[in-house]
């Protein structure tokens, strides 16, 4: 089995080693690029959302690179994400590609287990042993990546040279990617803090803090969000995304962190009674949390015409105005350009700085 899966952020670092340990061959397609997105946009229905187009282009690349099994996570709910697997499979089959489709979902658990057992030529004990090893390695990689990202984000606004700081992160990520043994990962994990502490500091004292919310793919994939976390970091802003890859895998894949999700939803409940399938309730909950924690502003990113993110927007605008919390909403599609985004971000950061100088903060309670 030569497996391939949609590219999101640095997911390959984690899932590649998991699948390899399980006994599958993994096809690593060329890094997601504008060309891949353009290809996906050509093949996908026009009004489909950006993540669909990006992952579709990505899958074509994987198939060209020799993949014979496409792995998707899926489910049946109200967001279009649940259709990615079958719809992309239909499109790709009509293009003449031949492959197996493996949809991982909580409803499809037996098939998933069968597929995994099949990798160990049907021997269940062997599959189990392998699975334990695989998940341990994957988990450690994911945790290490998450830690590196977190410390990097916290260092960025203070770095004398943001580019150098970025280089440190890339070096650590590469180390994690290449690691084959748990102890290497533990060592890397331990060294993260020291390596960022060695980055030369500028004289910034109290950076602006911004919460990044929105649709998962657009928050996680630097190619489609034009590396928004790094750009804001370069402007001296401490960015705190509500979702990181580790948390995404944990929350949605393994259903961990249910408490935190429930807390976010509870916070949002006054404004949002039913979650409609995406990160809507979760984002809103984190926005209210940002009010409580006195963040300076909130940036919301989502694909153009994404149903959950569009529908939650009026509520976010209302929260923003009743708590006096600056809010910038950015919708992305395959036509978005970096300069346009940068201009908007710069203007937003200017506004936040001016508010800070004038001593304005968000209100904690609804007057």
């Amino acid at each position: 089995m030569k497996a391939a899966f949609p590219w999101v952020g640095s997911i390959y670092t984690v899932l590649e080693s998991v699948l390899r340990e399980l006994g599958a061959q993994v096809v690593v397609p060329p890094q997601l690029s504008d060309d891949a997105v353009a290809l996906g946009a050509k093949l996908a229905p026009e009004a489909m959302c950006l993540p669909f187009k990006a992952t579709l282009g990505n899958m074509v690349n994987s198939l060209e690179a020799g993949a014979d099994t496409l792995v998707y996570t899926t489910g049946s709910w109200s967001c279009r994400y649940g259709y990615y697997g079958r719809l992309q499979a239909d499109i790709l089959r009509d293009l003449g590609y031949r492959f197996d489709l493996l949809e991982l979902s909580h409803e499809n658990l037996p098939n998933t287990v069968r597929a995994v057992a099949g990798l160990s030529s049907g021997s269940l004990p062997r599959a189990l042993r392998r699975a334990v090893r695989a998940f341990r390695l994957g988990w450690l990689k994911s945790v290490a990546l998450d830690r590196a990202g977190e410390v990097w984000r916290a260092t960025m606004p203070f770095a004398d040279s943001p580019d150098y700081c970025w280089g440190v992160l890339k070096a650590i990520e590469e180390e994690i990617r290449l690691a084959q043994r748990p102890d290497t990962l533990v060592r890397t994990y331990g060294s993260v803090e020291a390596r960022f502490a060695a980055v030369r500091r500028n004289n910034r004292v109290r950076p602006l803090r911004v919460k990044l919310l929105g649709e998962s793919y657009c928050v996680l994939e630097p190619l489609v969000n034009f590396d928004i976390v790094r750009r804001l970091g370069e402007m001296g802003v401490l960015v705190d995304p509500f979702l990181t890859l580790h948390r995404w895998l944990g929350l949605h894949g393994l259903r961990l962190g249910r408490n935190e999700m429930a807390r976010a939803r509870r916070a949002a409940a006054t404004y949002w009674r039913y979650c409609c399938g995406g990160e809507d309730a979760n984002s809103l909950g984190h926005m209210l949390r940002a009010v409580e924690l006195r963040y300076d502003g909130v940036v919301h990113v989502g694909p153009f015409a994404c149903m959950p993110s569009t529908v939650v927007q009026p509520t976010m605008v209302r929260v923003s105005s009743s708590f006096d919390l600056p809010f910038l909403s950015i919708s992305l599609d395959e036509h978005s350009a970096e300069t346009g985004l940068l201009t908007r971000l710069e203007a937003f950061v200017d506004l936040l700085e001016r508010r800070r100088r004038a001593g304005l903060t968000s209100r904690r309670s609804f007057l």
Partner: protein
Amino acid sequence: MATRIGICRSLHTFNHYPLWRAFLSELGFDVVLSEPVNRETLDFGARVAPAEVCLPVKAFIGQIARIADAVDALFIPRLVCRRVNRRLFFGCPKAIALPDVVRAIFPRLGGIIELIIDERERPEWQAFRDLAVSLGVSRWRPAWLSACHAAEEALGVTRASGSPLHVFGEEVSPLPTVRGPRTAVVGHSYLLFDRHLGMNVLKHVSDAGAQVVVAFPSAKELSRHESLLVSPPSWYYELELLTATGLSVETGAIDGLLFVSSFACGTAPVTYEMIRRKLVRGKFPMLTLLLDEQTGEAGQRTRIESFVDLLMLKGKR
């Protein structure tokens, strides 16, 4: 004077109005149906709603502003989830979040009566009963029951293939049966039967000399057909569209298909791909019309006419 409850004449009201009216008037309320969508309401909706929501939601928001002052409360249902054959089918995110969206856009708006249909929690009839109870009707007064009966009689809504279509209690102006190519028009009822949003699509098709086939499956057909579909969509109203198309294709009763959707409708691209790749499969021509608040009727008309011309030419060959 009885409490007046406003219902907007857009979105899923087109499917369920007789039921909702029967239910509310049986409970002793005055039901006020808003005026049909027009230029003004749509413009207002487009201004206050977020730019990226779909056309019918903009119309809905515009109508709320229109009707809110004239009534004591608004009836806004939340269509979360329905069961067909034990499988769950969801409303689209907009149908699920509608009351919250309205509250966010009109923070000063008073009473909103929410009917929450979520069959993960309770069957549909219980949703009606609980709503009746929350409106101060005794649980034991079977008003909701008689309401359901009344609705049953009023049914004929937009359903039942074969029998004439009814929208808001009126029979849809009987389309002259011409002997032209049979064209299935597939789209949400709130587009096809709304004169302003839908730009008289049905009339133009029939004027162009084609025979219009519009089918909305009954509950029985829905559940029968659902079991036939390999991977049905998990949206209830899209299942309806797909079933309707499936039934027409199955009986071989159509020569062409016109797919009508609105700008920024999230579910349409998925349904479109499913219909195109699973049902049509190149067996007959298919045209998509995308409606938005800017399109002129003449443009749509030209496209429909040339599509029907194409079907006629194909028929002659």
